[in-house]
């Protein structure tokens, strides 16, 4: 009966001959802010960009290792110079030439525009860009040997755009981009109905690292309500549903024989921030006492049962996170697992009691715990209700749990209004450093008044350590130090979950540590 609502057979009868390479229907609840890389810095926009733009470096499906995409080669030629050689003979889908000028233009433009919605903040390390010839680009960096730079070249700040189409100092609207056919990627956009339906067509002249797509094209359908997306993937109206289904939905879909649930590593992180000034016994409280404050943090770390939250609230779609760097990243360890609780991941009431008693804290400590209900998915309420329960059950804490709407939350949290509060993080690029520098260097963006010179030195060191093994070691050291201080208490690490029809192939290979969903790997 609902045949007419099924995944389009490729837009009417016109594609009957392409039955071998069919069109994939993808669904998501994310949203596109802008197709212009300078005007957006979010998952929804980046997902589309990944299909239609190329990068100097990109990762192959299955991993997060930056490998040449538009580049032929890319490396540090001097400590502050990163030189990229472009492949020859590159053309945009509209026929314009793609050369080093486009590359320089793309990065200069990001910085120039610095749009509030844009990712220009990722490019602070670039001092200047030179283009000695049509296929050579030289990035001069402020900080030498920046080990994250190749990763930055794969990040939302780095899609290369057509300098003959995009203006240098302002954003280009989506429709004009589509009209100008200014694409160079596995796909070009065939029709663009923003945040409703986008139809992509494989671009035969693509020569980047991702190779030829496994399908003839794809449609991206945008949902406002995850339940609808769930029902449609269940009913086969879409082939793949990616971000974001609720834990209950995923749990339900796991039991459904018509669909497959795919789980891949995730870089998303949920954690609790302690404001060192205003938390119980914090520096600016009347009863300031760093020892007692530390004891409070440690006791909390002892008491939290991450597994229980993961199981009950998230049904395994988020996993326990045992360190500031999520597992799966080079250098990640499980410093919190060893240091707190029973040492194997279970909470330990005795240890918490002992810590508190040792610090001379008697009677329950009142914690004002703040969370945000609307920005980190709608399970935050349940998550924090559980945390409150876990902390209070011990008798060591009384928890005053409150929630605040996102914009206010953000401003207030940075103005020391919340002693203990929830935050989340989604990486800009796939490197452990993205979980360290923004947080713990120069006060960090959280403004929680934590600073540890040793941590900052080590972070600075790992950033420029070219030797992989040594770098990982340094990163581990940082994590151990952080676990001791507990500036933030990592809780959960998100997994990438996609649901597809049973006849759909190739979903797993794109659920990798690059966190880029590539439609090109999927076929049916």
């Amino acid at each position: 009966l609902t045949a007419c609502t099924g995944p389009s057979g490729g837009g009417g009868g016109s594609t009957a001959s392409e039955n071998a390479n069919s069109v994939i229907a993808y669904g998501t609840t994310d949203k596109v802010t802008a197709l212009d890389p300078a005007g957006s810095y979010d998952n929804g926009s980046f997902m589309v960009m990944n299909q239609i733009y190329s990068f100097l470096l990109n990762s192959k499906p299955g991993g997060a290792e930056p490998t040449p995409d538009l580049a032929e080669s890319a490396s540090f030629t001097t400590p502050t110079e990163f030189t990229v050689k472009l492949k020859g003979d590159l053309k945009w889908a509209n026929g314009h030439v793609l050369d080093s000028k486009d590359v320089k233009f793309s990065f200069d433009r990001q910085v120039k525009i610095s749009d509030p919605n844009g990712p220009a903040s990722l490019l602070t390390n670039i001092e200047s860009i030179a283009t000695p010839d049509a296929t050579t680009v030289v990035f001069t960096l402020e900080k030498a040997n920046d080990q994250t730079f190749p990763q930055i070249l794969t990040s939302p700040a780095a899609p290369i755009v057509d300098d003959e189409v995009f203006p240098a100092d302002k954003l280009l609207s989506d429709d004009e981009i589509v009209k100008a056919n200014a694409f160079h990627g596995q796909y070009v956009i065939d029709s663009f109905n923003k945040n409703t339906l986008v139809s992509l067509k494989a671009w035969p002249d693509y020569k980047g690292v991702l190779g030829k797509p496994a399908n003839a094209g794809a449609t991206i359908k945008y949902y406002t309500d995850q339940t609808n997306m769930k029902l449609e993937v269940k009913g086969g109206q879409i082939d793949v549903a990616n971000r974001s289904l609720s834990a209950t939905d995923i749990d339900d879909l796991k039991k459904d024989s018509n669909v497959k649930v795919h789980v891949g590593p995730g870089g998303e992180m949920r954690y609790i921030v302690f404001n060192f000034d205003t938390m119980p016994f914090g520096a600016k409280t009347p009863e300031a006492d760093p020892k007692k404050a530390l004891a409070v943090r440690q006791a909390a770390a002892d008491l939290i049962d991450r597994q229980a939250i993961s199981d009950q609230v998230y049904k395994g779609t988020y996993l326990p996170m045992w360190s500031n760097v999520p597992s799966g990243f080079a250098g990640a360890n499980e410093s919190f697992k060893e240091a707190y609780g029973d040492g194997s991941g279970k909470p330990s009431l005795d240890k918490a009691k002992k810590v508190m008693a040792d610090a001379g804290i008697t009677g329950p400590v009142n914690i004002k715990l703040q969370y945000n209900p609307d920005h980190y998915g709608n399970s935050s309420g349940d998550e924090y209700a559980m945390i409150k329960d876990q902390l209070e059950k011990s008798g060591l804490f009384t928890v005053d749990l409150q929630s605040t709407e996102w914009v206010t939350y953000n401003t207030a949290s940075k103005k020391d209004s919340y002693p203990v509060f929830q935050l989340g993080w989604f990486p800009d690029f796939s490197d452990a450093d993205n979980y360290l520098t923004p947080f713990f260097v120069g006060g960090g963006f959280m403004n929680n008044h934590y600073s540890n010179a040793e941590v900052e030195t080590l972070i600075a060191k790992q950033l420029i350590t070219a030797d992989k093994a040594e770098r990982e070691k340094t990163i581990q050291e940082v994590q151990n130090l952080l676990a001791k201080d507990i500036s933030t208490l990592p809780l959960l690490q998100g997994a990438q979950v996609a649901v597809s029809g049973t006849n759909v192939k190739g979903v797993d290979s794109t659920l990798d540590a690059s966190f880029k969903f590539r439609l090109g790997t999927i076929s049916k």
Partner: protein
Amino acid sequence: MATLIDAPPPTVAAPKSKAAGGGLGRYILIRFLLIFPTIFILVTLVFFLMRITGDPITAAQGGRLPQEQIDALVHQAGYDRNLLIQYIEYLGNIATGNFGRTISDGRPVVEMLAKFGAATLELSINAVAVALLVGIPLGMFAAHKRDKVPDAFLRTFAILCYATPVFFAGLLLKLTFSVGLGWFPVAGRASTTTELAMGRLVAPTGIYWLDALRSGDLSAFGDIVHHAVLPAVALGLLTAGVFLRLVRTNVIGTLGKDYVEAGRSRGVSEYRLVTKHAYKPALIPIITVMGLQIALLLGGAVLTETTFEWKGLGYQLAQYLTARDFVAVQGIVMLLAVIVAVTNFVVDIAAALIDPRVRY
């Protein structure tokens, strides 16, 4: 949500007034001019309300950037300037027809309004059609059978329609008719194929069924109607309940009038008394209240649009509010104000036209 009580008496010159000397033309003119202060007040209210609620930059980048960087961006965007200056600037922009681009997704406001406005308009038309088709005949029937079992049944039905939150009703409808019975699609305005076909049309109205009819694409039309049923029913029933009661009360009211008695005394049948003699005079207050219901409909549309993936103004407004996209919100509010004011204007005029006393 407009109440179920009878029509609030018109606050502006009552069309019924015999003494409306200047005639219909003047009445229409004055009624029309009153649209503007309404819009102005709403826009002003929204402007200042939105500014106290925070800025779009914190909404978008708050969890990622340090406060200094955010402050710098806010300054760069000019949101930290004196509010009054911003307000005057905004009014100036509106006056020159410059509505700007949305902050959170960079669309030209006018284009955004046209696109989502058309979707909401389509939903509203469908819903009003359902509400009228259900509410008016049933209301007349209930009035005819007043205080009998069918009346009690219909009133209960009307109250249930009104009492069920539209998202709950939507969920139940979806689970029953889409998931359970498979009769209707779960959500959306059209299937992918149709949606793409609609995207290829030149100069579309944005109202899908109209576009489909104009382009002569009957299968697309069928598909669109197929998709429109559940949302229209969910939103329409909400209003149908109000209409039913409204029609019932007013028809009963006019049934007690002398002229109905006079008709009865001449042997006119009860059926005809209800459907002709009582109904048409009852229509004047009914139409007035129905105009007010448009506001309710747009409010209900927020929830219906969310539940049924109907990408329209209501849903979009909620999104833009979350993103503190004041440019977009102001634009939408302005459009809504225009729609409501114009609807009320049209309704007043229609009521005036139905009432022959004003016509001369």
